[in-house]
Structures are given as structure tokens and as C-alpha cells.
């Protein structure tokens, strides 16, 4: 079980790094992007272990990816989105999405609905995590700006 988790974490780091290379990232950013993907999946797996729910764990995991990306953006003086999108990639439901499409083609409507709903839940969980964390980041930035300008 431990080996399986280590393999998943290593794979998620490669996914994040590879994905960002496809979008022509500067190679010096690769270790940070890989770390983002690995840490996001690690948080997701730990939370599944604690809560037992795959969908509920997506919200804090996606939220962590946002905070990690913003931290990297400040430290490395680069746009946050460069670190955010690759970090989220390991959470995406490729297999469920394909199964939904395949069952639609084969006319298996109950299976299509089942996998379609599962895919939708994952997408909504990730989007909710991003939205909540981005709103928090925006709020912290506006407080910081007020403190600096005195307004």
C-alpha cells in the first residue's frame, strides 16, 4: 500500500512537470511545479484517509494548490497560474470521463449517468476549492494593499 502511494506521488510529480513542459514553461521552474503536483496529491490522499470521501477531499486539495501557486509566484516573481494549473492536473478524472463517453457510445445510459455524475462531482469539487481559495487570496491582498497605502 505504501509502495502504491509512493508510485502515485512520483507519477503525479511527473504529470505536473510534463504537463507544464508541454506548455513551454521555463525549465528552471520544473522542480517547483513537480513539488506542487506531488504535494497536492499527497494532501488529497491524506484527506481521503481521514474523511473517507474522495469528493470532499478535493476542495482542500485544490485550495492548497492555489495557496502553493501564490506562494511560488511571490518567491519566484512569476505568474501564479504557471504553478497552479500543473498542480491541479493529477486530480483530474480522465478515466471516469472516458468511461462516461464510452458508455454513451455503447448505449449504456445508466452507466453513462453514473460516471457522468462522478466526473461532474470531481470537477465541481476542484472548482469550488479554487474559487474559495482565490477569494481568500484576493481578500488577503486587498487587506495588504490597505495596510500599505493606509486607505
Amino acid at each position, binding site marked *: 500500500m505504501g509502495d502504491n502511494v509512493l508510485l502515485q506521488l*512520483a*507519477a503525479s510529480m511527473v504529470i505536473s512537470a510534463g504537463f507544464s*513542459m*508541454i506548455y513551454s514553461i521555463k525549465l528552471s521552474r520544473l522542480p517547483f511545479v513537480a513539488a506542487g503536483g506531488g504535494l497536492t496529491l499527497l494532501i488529497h490522499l491524506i484527506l481521503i484517509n481521514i474523511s473517507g470521501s474522495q469528493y470532499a477531499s478535493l476542495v482542500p486539495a485544490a485550495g492548497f494548490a492555489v495557496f502553493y501557486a501564490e506562494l511560488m509566484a511571490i518567491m519566484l516573481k512569476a505568474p501564479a497560474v504557471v504553478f497552479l*494549473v500543473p498542480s491541479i492536473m493529477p486530480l483530474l478524472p*480522465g478515466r471516469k*470521463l472516458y*468511461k462516461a463517453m464510452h458508455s454513451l457510445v455503447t448505449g449504456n445510459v445508466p452507466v453513462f449517468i453514473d460516471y457522468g455524475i462522478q466526473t461532474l462531482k470531481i470537477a465541481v469539487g476542484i472548482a469550488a476549492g479554487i474559487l474559495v481559495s482565490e477569494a481568500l487570496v484576493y481578500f488577503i491582498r486587498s487587506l495588504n494593499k490597505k495596510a500599505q497605502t493606509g486607505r
Partner: protein
Amino acid sequence: MKIAENKVPDIVSEIGRKLLENGAAVNRVEDTISRICASYGEKADVFALPSFIAMTASGVTQTVRVKSGKINFGKIEELNQLSRYICEKHPCKEEIKIYLDKIDAPKDKRVLPLAYLCTAAALTVNFGGSVKDVCASVIISLVIMVVREHAGANRILNIFLVAFATGLSSATLTVFMPQVSSESIIGACVILMIPGFTVTTALKDMLCGDTIAGILRMCESILLSLAIATGIVLSEYTAGLLYGR
């Protein structure tokens, strides 16, 4: 130093155009233009959408039509660095032009096949695929790379052709390698096509109050996702006709 005398609106709108072409969020474009103008002591009014920029500074109004291009993290970062440099040093127009030409210069694409191979292999491992599944994904990821680079600039048509080629290649491979699971292969390759960047940028745009830009980008993501689904579904029907499945 007045912006109009220094012909900065041309440069600034060019930087804004390149940021949008390479996939930057609308608020980043507006912020970049405003900061550069502010560094020259001028207030700029900027309105940007994913395909359009309108800016007014020092009595000069410029509008720019932006054509969609390929998402490029490296160029977004370089343009970000250029805007910081302009704000700090106020270089002359010729120097900025040299910088912009350097950013636009074709980059080394030799890492691209390696990126596709490694990502597809890692995705297949993540979905529980076997060694044979990994080998098959790696082959199909190269198909994705070739079709994506040559299928044209129209994003929706491009992604449809990529999805169709992926589905058909996977079906063809399973004829010669019946032990591979098309579920793991296509599941992995679908992730390579999903418009994750466009969706994330759409959410960021909406959160920053750029609702129109966010909705436009979300519509684009939905169309791209439908194009992927249509491509995969059509490829399955085509494979059924060709291979009798």
C-alpha cells in the same frame, strides 16, 4: 515623460496583446498595462476581453484585436519580467522591441516529445495501467503531439482532430495488442487534451470581477470539452465500422 511622446501606448498594447495571445488572465493584462503607464506618471483606463483590448492614456486611445494562440507559460513569464523591467528602467522603444523580438523567437522544441511521453506514461500509471498500457499510451501521446502541432490554429477544430486521432489510434493499437486496456490509455490521453488552463483562467477572471471575460472563457472551455467528447465518440463509431466492434 509623457506616454504619447514616447510612443508607449504602441508598446504597452503590444505587450497586452502578446499576454492575451499566450493565455494570460484578463486582470493580469489590465494590471500590466496600468502599471507600465503608472510608472510613466500616467493613469490608464484599460478594458480587456480574451480577444480585445481598449486602453486610453494621456488622451490617446488604442484598441487591439487579439487572435487566439497557443498557451505558453514561458512567454507569459517573460512578458511579466519585461513589464517589470519597463516599470523600473524606462528603456527606449528600440530596446523594448529587441526584448519583444527575443520573446517571439522560436524556442527549442526538442523537449516536447519527452514531455508528452513522460506525462502520458505517468498518467497511465496513475490510472492503474499495466506496462503494456504505458507503452501504448506513450505511442498515442506522440500521435497527439503531431496532430496538435499540425492541425491548425482553430482551437476547437484542433482539439476535435486530436481527440478523433487519439480514439482511432487507441482502437487500432488494441487490434494489434489485445491485452492493453483502452480505458487506461484513452483515460490518460484525455487528460492531455482537457482545457484545464482555460477553465482555471475563466474562474480567476470571474473572481476578479471580469465576469464577461470569465463567461467567454468558460463558454470556450465547454465548446472544447464538447469537441473532445465528439472526437472520441466519432472515433469509437469509426473504429466499430473499421474493425467490426
